[in-house]
């Protein structure tokens, strides 16, 4: 039996060459998957001043942005479960999003122009997200104000939940929604990330 184990171990080892081959084969798989319409969810990671962001897109548009704190692997598992398990690391599909986020974090971009796929937000939460895109760069609104603007002044907590579960933070600027007392409030990327985004926008406001 030790012989069998030895054989199995050796047959399971990967040489450097197979690592190189894998990079080539992965690229080839992406190309074929795109042309056959099988790349349901593409993702990449982008380094930003608020940590590495996971960006994911369907053919429709950007479907998910996630912070380190949310656990990129957990978010990918969630996408596999809720959107499609055909999830592949395919940076080129995220090139426009990565470019615009780079511009945003350098203060040069105040508004995103990206197709979004909001399939992970439903009902009232989705309405809230639609409202958030009206909030101008460098401005803030309270949870209560957003609820009132939607005609549901009592739905303050629901607005908070919608912000907390925003599938595409930064691009849909839930960080611009703050507590009525002016403090930043919670954020999926952590309170520190929220303050950093608000500070960035204040500094680059026209």
């Amino acid at each position, binding site marked *: 039996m030790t012989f069998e184990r030895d*054989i199995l171990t050796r047959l399971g080892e990967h040489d450097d060459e197979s690592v190189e*081959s*894998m990079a080539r*084969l992965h690229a*080839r798989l992406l190309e*074929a998957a795109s042309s056959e319409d099988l790349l349901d969810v593409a993702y990449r990671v982008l380094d930003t001043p608020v940590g590495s962001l996971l960006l994911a897109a369907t053919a429709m548009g950007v479907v998910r942005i996630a912070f380190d704190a949310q656990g990129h692997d957990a978010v990918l598992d969630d996408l*596999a479960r809720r959107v499609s*398990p055909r*999830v*592949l690391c395919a940076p080129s599909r995220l090139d426009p999003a990565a470019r615009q986020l780079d511009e945003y974090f350098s203060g040069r971009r105040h508004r995103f122009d990206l197709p979004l796929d909001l399939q992970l937000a439903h009902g009232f939460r989705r309405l809230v997200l639609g409202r958030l895109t009206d909030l101008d760069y460098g401005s803030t609104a309270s949870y209560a104000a957003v609820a009132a603007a939607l005609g549901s002044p009592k739905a303050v907590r629901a607005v908070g939940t919608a912000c907390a579960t925003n599938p595409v933070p930064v691009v849909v600027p839930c960080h611009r929604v703050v507590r009525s007392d002016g403090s930043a409030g919670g954020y999926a990327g952590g309170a520190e990330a929220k303050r950093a985004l608000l500070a960035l926008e204040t500094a680059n406001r026209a």
Partner: protein
Amino acid sequence: MSLPPFEVVVADHGPTVLRICRAMVGAHDAEDVWSETFLAALAAYPRLEPDSNVRGWLATIAHRKAIDQIRKTNRGPLPVERLPEAPGYSGEPAPRDDDLWDAVAALPTKQRGAVLYHYVAGLPYAEVGQLLDSSEAAARRAAADGMRALRSTVTRETS
């Protein structure tokens, strides 16, 4: 329990499936067979049962794709005589498979298939038999014969 992202499947099983492909069709065609295998797997993936033996499932697809490839290139049965040192036609150096993988590639077709599908891919003998058009018992014998042949190779190496 749910299916992991396909990227995880590629990372976990891609290299092993590539070596299975090399052993089955040689270095020159292995990447074509791997690509066909993973594209077909990606297409079918959402219908896979979450607790399946993913490596065995991939090996089953690779087996079919290898047969397609061999038919396409019209080389008759598995090209054992070209192995193990056939260089790539495109000028790429032949992979430096260690002696053990060379020995696997040089096994007779059924023994090679039985060793790869049972020992490397983890398929039960009944399924190995189906892939090789043999009975379960014949697949078990072929795997045992293949392992005995590999053992003599390893013994020669170390002595």
